[in-house]
């Protein structure tokens, strides 16, 4: 189960970045995703949407959630929007339990996301 974490950044379109997350987001792997997104965003100022593909995301604990929030902050500060695609039930449950789904994904809550920043 402890498979580590691999994150890959691609830009299929100029304004869209796709990041696939494969592995566990937890205390031991903290920082990997945030570093990748921060570095790449700096090199692609035109990106308006960052889509995290969570289909291969295994386990996400509280440190993992904290990492997603930091990524969200970085993405919003760069003037882009964060999307969490292909969410597995476990991740959905975590987002629901912690009341962070709307905040993180901005789905149906654009007004709110704007108010945060």
């Amino acid at each position: 189960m402890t498979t580590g974490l691999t994150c890959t950044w691609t830009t299929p379109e100029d304004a869209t970045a796709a990041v696939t997350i494969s592995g566990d987001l937890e205390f031991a792997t903290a920082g990997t995703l945030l570093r990748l997104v921060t570095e790449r965003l700096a090199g692609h100022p035109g990106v308006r949407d960052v889509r995290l593909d969570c289909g291969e995301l295994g386990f996400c604990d509280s440190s993992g959630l904290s990492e997603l929030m930091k990524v969200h902050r970085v993405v919003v500060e760069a003037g882009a929007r964060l999307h969490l695609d292909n969410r597995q039930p476990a991740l959905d449950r975590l987002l629901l339990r912690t009341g962070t789904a709307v905040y993180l994904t901005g789905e149906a809550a654009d007004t709110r996301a704007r108010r945060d920043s």
Partner: protein
Amino acid sequence: MVVDRSGTVRALNEAARALFPAAGFGRPAAGTIADWLAEAHQRGSDEVARGEVGERAFAAHPVPHGEAVTWWLIDETETRSAREALAREQERTAFLSDASAALLGSLNLDRCMEVAARLAAQHLADAALVLAPTTGATFPAVSCVRGGEPTRTRLEIDPDELPGLGEALQGFPPVPSRWLDPGAAPSWVLPEGFGPVGSIVVTPLPGHGVPAGALVLLRRGDRASFSDSEELFARLFAARAGAAMSAARVFALQASITDTLMRELLPPTLEQLGGVEYAGRYRPARDGERIGGDFYDVHSAITAEGEESLAVLGDVCGKGLDAAVLTGKIRTTLRALLPMADDHHRLLDLLNRTLGDNADARYVTLVLASARREGATVRLRVTCAGHPPPLIVRADGRVEEVDSQGSLIGVLPEIESTTAEITLHPGETCLLYTDGIVEAKGGPLGDAMFGEERLEQAVAECANMPADAVVERVQMLASQWIGRGSHDDMAVLAITAPRGQHLAAVGGHGRGRYTA
């Protein structure tokens, strides 16, 4: 120089003649040249012979040819003294390296001083006195006589009685060791029964920015006084001893700071409060650290109405001291917000604003549970803020999840929360836990999570148990599950409606009356 088999000198060159003025052609070698060379020739040695002629050292190389041997003498006075110096230096380096290892073997200041005194007495002098700086009236000191055991004392002295000692103890930069008149040394410098002192050297022990102390070396009257190189060597030793002692001091200081912090951050011992049983258990992520990111507290009622107490269990994301410090902040804030405990949402909202705006997206998830005893039952109001919902164990073994949900605290601009109301009957328990329990990895293959199902199963067996037994059992099962694996912080808190106790007068057996 050529000497034949009978020991007669056959030839001498200029240099040999100068070296052995008595030797000459046709004369016997014995008695006219150096004895060690004559003996080597007598033995018929074909190896290099070494010896002294006057103040100089020579190596004699034999070259046999027929009836005679030619001895080539090579002056190696310089080489020899270099070799001796090298050996001495190697010995000192080895000693210093051993000394460093011995000194750094302990981070205890007393132990460190003992080692320094013993090493100094054995290798540098006949006796040594190590003094540490003090904030009080007496100086911690260790003295040691060569071959003896170090003795620890506290000296009530004026260090200025021994010139240089006062400055050394105040941490002035290392000054050259001072030569002192042994007669002027105060009596407290001398170990008991040491006899007349020949020489004394005071060397400061330089520390890391803080004075580490001073080293006093003593030699008996009949021994040679300290040479320049010995004094230099003593200073090299002092540098190492000082570094070790100051590391030990800094460590002791940090340990005491950590201890003080820990006392404040440790989870409290819980007991019955207002007719409600409470019990908690806590196991930090890193064994050996007693504090971490999980916490719990039970506050007695401070609102005017009724006897409602407030239990809080929470989990700060992260581990170790960083998490513990935030935990302390949250616990203090919650204590201040206690008057708002009748409205959980308002309390959480205020906490959220207090913690908000932290740069590193640190958040806390927690459960608030207000409990009030009503007759034999306990009325609960429970609110989850981004936290796994507590479990209720009914008296018949059914397990329910508390129906409450809310946002985590500390990151979001606005929070939401719903509060659930629950009634606990005697023997029923509400169990609050952190995700360290359900996310504990272990099991037969070491990679499965303890999980909610296993937790529910474990809790189901805890119906009608006292609160303390419930938390003990849950913590024990999770610990067994983990085995030697790693885990996050784990905390559990049980709120239990007490079962009535048998009245002592009824004897405690059979059906009796219960006290409420």
